């Protein structure tokens, strides 16, 4: 915790509280970092906005990059789609330095995008956004019967689970038999 706090002060020296006091002194610009997703489109994000992500915040707190270095080395997130990353960056910018509201209605309604967003947010460790997304997922089944829930969340039935378990056991047995046969061949 202390390391992240130190990192914040080093990465973002321009505190909004100090700026009005030193009107004569030249304003220290806010530091920016660069991220890109699968589509290689680079997004410029302020250190203040990136504080929401525990992963990125932990990375930048120990780097001490200058502006040029940051520009030259954007953080690559190859497992996140470009539009999803854009969504996350927009959310971080919107909620920069603000207390997070109890509910956020600007999340995507499409289930496919929401799934990718949840994975991205979980990877980037943005706690508040993850809670909103999880709440959105939970709201999908409000007032639904177990059958409908099973359909929406693609949950296999007991019979399907049992069949999958049997198959997994068979496969494991075959693999084990193959391994023992291979070991016996080696011994010979």
């Amino acid at each position, binding site marked *: 915790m202390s390391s992240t706090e130190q990192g914040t002060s080093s990465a973002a020296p321009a505190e909004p509280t100090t700026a009005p006091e030193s009107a004569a002194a030249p304003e220290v610009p806010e530091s920016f970092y660069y991220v890109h997703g699968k589509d290689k489109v680079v997004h410029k994000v302020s250190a203040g906005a990136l504080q929401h992500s525990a992963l990125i915040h932990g990375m930048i707190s120990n780097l001490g990059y200058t502006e040029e270095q940051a520009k030259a080395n954007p953080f690559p997130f190859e497992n996140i789609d470009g539009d999803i990353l854009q969504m996350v960056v927009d959310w971080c910018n919107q909620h920069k330095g603000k207390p997070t509201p109890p509910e956020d209605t600007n999340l995507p309604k499409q*289930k496919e995008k929401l799934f990718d967003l*949840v994975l991205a947010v*979980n990877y980037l460790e943005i706690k508040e956004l993850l809670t909103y997304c999880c709440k959105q997922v939970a709201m999908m089944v409000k007032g639904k019967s177990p059958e409908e829930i099973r359909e929406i969340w693609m949950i296999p039935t007991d019979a399907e689970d049992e069949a999958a378990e049997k198959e997994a056991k068979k496969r494991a047995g075959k693999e084990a038999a193959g391994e023992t046969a291979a070991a016996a061949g080696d011994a010979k």
Partner: protein
Amino acid sequence: MSKNAQENGTIERIKEAVKEEKYAIEKFPLLELPDLVRETVIRLMDPIEIFDFSQCSKRMRRTVKRSVRHKTYHLYLQAGKMYQIALYPAIYPEKKEKQAIFRVRKLNGDARRDPIYDRNLGNFQKIHGRFQESVLYLCHKSHFEITMALVAELMNLMTIKFHQVRMFLDAVENRDHRPLVEWLNGFPDGIKSTHISGDLVSNENMVDLMQTYQCSQTLRFFGRLDGFKIDHLPLKATDLSIAHTHWMTVDNVLQLDNVITFRLENARHFSDTDFNFILKRIISGALPKMVLAHFIPGRTYNRAVICQDIPMVRENSDRVFSRFPKVQIEDVGGFHFNLDNGDLGSIFFYTNVRAGMTLKGIGVIVWRPDA
């Protein structure tokens, strides 16, 4: 206009489009989410959704159990013609959250059942259940048994603290409360608070209830049972309130050894001499745990008879009774007396005038240093 639209088939097309949109369920692969995220989703669901989700498959039941086993809910049960289970989050009432309500009704006749509303619950296959306006309605031919199974299932899934029971004895199945009481007595931590109402219960049933029900803290009776009397009153409750006292006797009052606070309303058949006798017995050591007794005779009484032969010291604090004009209501006032064991007791005679109804009462407080 509407005719033209009908002729052109516009309405039909719109209806079909709406129907398609309604039934085009967008799927979300929940099981492909990382474990911790999936558990967060489950924890953010309401108890009704958690329950419904746990009914999807055995695997999901295990997942739910693992995810919400540390989440605590307070349970309020209402038992009568219909059983209602309300679950409140444990943080209630500091943070007001909506309660989850399960209502269990008796399924009458061969009502046509849509299999889409069938739910599996424990050993009871295919319960008819329907979610409507944030309440889950369940119907079964034996609604009491299904309530037991439902509570057991909820206790299995999450941490439940049984807080309150309201029993409407006149509406209970066959007017027989015994299976219900037997079930409630089986909870290891006991039921904290119970409200019992009933006007038409048989005396036998009432005696049985009084003698067997093990409520741990607060017990309130509301009922007008004429001619009902009980000899032995082995109550476990520490906070007892009886609204109609046709069946209470002076002996019953003096048997309340565990009771700490006690309220007796409509005590018309308790004479002033009876109150004097009870007071004398309290002074000599009866009701050893009693701290506050509140008698509402519902009639005028004679203070001199109630305090007869007991040395009393008049309460001279204006603060306590300053709101009562002493000139108009002479009976109002407080007195102190000493108990045989050296403790101090107080008796207050007061009047509350609300909505044109005068309520006269007697409050007895015993200042017990150990309590």
